[in-house]
């Protein structure tokens, strides 16, 4: 059968013979196999043609889970070209679930012949479910289409099986259509293609920023200690600003969250120590974001350096620290620093790290640190930030710390917010009902914020309040 499909969709034109060849020599639809119960097949086909969705579901269910055998698959797949578009999509999905590769030629033919995006998307999903290496070319091409085909092709490339699939996607990520290279990299990450890690590391220093960013994003998901050295090159290659920030975050993820994170952090430290000054300057932020005792020793050295520029670098690194282990250093520095900009930086860091839920400090210690920080604040702007952060420490002592500020006209609003946020947590509120009632009464007498008023009234009555979800952009 050499039926030529003259229609050209998405740059693909294939003959029937080529399609069957692509699908590993699967035989095309032929006369019904003697072993297939034709009465059951015919009944199934009859159901597929019914307007009643319930009957169609019975037929599709039989295709999915019954009437076993390649011959039956070929018979059902042969129907694809004869059905209305909506039914084509239904049948394609059922054939995909059936899991028999014998349906592949018909699915490819449907993809070539149909102009309906939904049908083409269903066919692409089917190719993902049933296909392997030979189908990757079609899926790759379809990735350039618009949704829903693009989304289907992407999903299909993520799930399509076969040992030869990942190398083909790697090839596309390396030398495919430039605008699609980042997508191919994302697909490799979705496939958890660890065999592609060397290629991802190469992509992390690619000339194309979008490719580099995608590669670092993928490495953040798949990388471990062995990839840190290469990822550092990615950070160094990244342009300062958004790209650098994302690249740094990728390294931080590998060093703080992924399996082997301790070894990854060690690798980062080793590489930092071996680097020259200019590289160290770039990597210092990453090192600080990862934290740890090795990194703090380096930062300490910089802070105590007589060179002003190095000291500034050290202080900047300190402000990126991920936990409260540097709190005493920050307090000490605040005690001695005379530079206002430096003091602002240190104070801001203290306010940020004091209530962090990182298990480095217990609630009592967190509150003590926040109280100390408050005592060091000289501007209402900073005090307001302290009060706003306080509600992250969910204890009755925090309420007692915040309540006095309700009387200060300059600090009342952030104090009101923190009281209400603390009251949101029923376990603390119910255990200290009288104190919370008094505090909420004071909030009601103080705030002009309608949402806070509503929340305070609800909490007083023992009711809950549902936080509004941010609007989707």
């Amino acid at each position, binding site marked *: 059968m050499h039926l030529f499909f003259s229609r050209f969709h998405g740059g693909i034109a294939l003959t029937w013979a080529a399609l069957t060849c692509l699908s590993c020599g699967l035989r095309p639809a032929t006369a019904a196999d003697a072993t297939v*119960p034709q009465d059951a097949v015919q009944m199934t086909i009859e159901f597929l043609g019914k307007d009643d969705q319930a009957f169609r579901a019975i037929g599709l269910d039989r295709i999915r889970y019954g009437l076993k055998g390649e011959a039956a698959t070929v018979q059902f797949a042969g129907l694809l070209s004869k059905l209305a578009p909506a039914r084509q999509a239904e049948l394609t999905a059922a054939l995909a679930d059936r899991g028999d590769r014998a349906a592949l030629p018909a699915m490819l033919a449907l993809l070539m012949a149909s102009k309906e995006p939904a049908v083409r998307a269903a066919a692409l999903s089917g190719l993902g479910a049933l296909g392997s290496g030979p189908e990757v070319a079609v899926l790759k091409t379809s990735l350039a289409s618009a949704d829903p085909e693009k989304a289907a092709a992407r999903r299909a490339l993520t799930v399509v099986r076969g040992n030869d699939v990942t190398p083909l996607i790697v090839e596309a990520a390396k030398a495919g259509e430039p605008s699609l290279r980042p997508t191919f990299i994302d697909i490799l990450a979705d496939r958890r293609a660890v065999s592609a890690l060397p290629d991802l590391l190469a992509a992390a220093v690619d000339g194309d920023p979008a490719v580099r960013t995608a590669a670092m994003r993928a490495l953040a998901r798949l990388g471990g200690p062995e990839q840190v050295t290469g990822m550092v090159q990615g950070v160094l290659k990244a342009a300062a600003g958004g790209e650098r920030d994302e690249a740094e975050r990728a390294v931080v993820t590998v060093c703080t969250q992924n399996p082997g994170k301790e070894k990854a952090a060690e690798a980062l430290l080793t590489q930092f120590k071996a680097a020259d000054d200019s590289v160290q300057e770039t990597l210092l932020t990453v090192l600080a974001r990862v934290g740890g005792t090795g990194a703090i020793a380096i930062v300490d050295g910089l802070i105590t350096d007589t060179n002003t520029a190095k000291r500034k670098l050290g202080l900047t690194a300190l402000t990126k620290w991920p936990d409260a282990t540097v709190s005493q250093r920050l307090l000490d520095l605040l005690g001695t620093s005379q530079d206002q900009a430096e003091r602002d930086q240190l104070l801001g860091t203290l306010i940020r790290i004091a209530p962090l839920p990182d298990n480095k400090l217990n609630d009592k210690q967190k509150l003590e640190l926040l109280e100390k920080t408050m005592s060091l604040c000289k501007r209402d702007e900073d005090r307001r930030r302290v009060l706003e952060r306080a509600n992250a420490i969910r204890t009755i002592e925090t309420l007692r710390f915040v309540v006095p500020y309700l009387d200060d006209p300059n600090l009342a609003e952030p104090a009101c917010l923190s009281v209400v946020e603390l009251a949101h947590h029923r376990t603390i509120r119910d255990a200290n009902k009288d104190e919370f009632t008094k505090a909420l009464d004071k909030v009601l007498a103080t705030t002009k914020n309608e949402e806070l008023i509503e929340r305070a009234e609800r909490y007083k009555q023992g009711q809950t309040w549902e936080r509004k979800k941010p609007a989707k952009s």
Partner: protein
Amino acid sequence: MAYDSASLDKPFDVLKTFDWGGDASALQPIDAAVVAAHGDPAARTDLEKRLAALLGAGTSRAAKEYICRKLSLIGTAASVPSLAALLSEKDHSHMARFALERINAAEATEALRKALGTVQGDLKIGMISSLAGRGDAASVPAIAALLSGESKTAVAAAVALGRLHTPEACQALAAASSVTDKAATAAICDARLACAESLLRQGKRAEAKAIYTSLSETATAGTTPTAQATRLAAARGILACLDTTTTS
């Protein structure tokens, strides 16, 4: 822990006068003895005898319920007469059935079968349910005879025949075309589907298909949701019967 009959004298004394609201913890030694009697035939016989003896006495409903629960665990044919005597009593019939349903003795089935012919109303429905629960194929004719009776009983009979799904049960359901009660008709339809599914599971495709086809034909003219659901179920069943490539 070894079984000690004498140590149960006091709990059994409590049981004689036990009622709801009483201290159930006083009966705990009996619970423990029931557990301990597992694998100890002599202990089991002694316990069963002592428990069954209190069923006939002037014990409360609460005490009888307690005893029935224990006999459901350790009862034998020896308990059947005492339990059977309660089957016709409105307050005790349910718990007596609870025990008899679980006692592994032909006498228990026989007692339920006998009671089916004598009790009425809800008690009869209970017997039907228990006989189906025991899978008593011999009770099919008696249960089938109730399909044309009062609505609630007919529904229970249909459900029971569907649960029994023996060839005789299937035939009886198929023959009940004269039933006009709406609830009973729907229950018969469900029961026939259950029979067909059972036959299909056993590989008896032709017999199953005959039932599905009959149901499909009966429901063809109907426009009610029940008729539509029957048509769908039958269609699905027929297709499954025809699909010889798949084991159901």
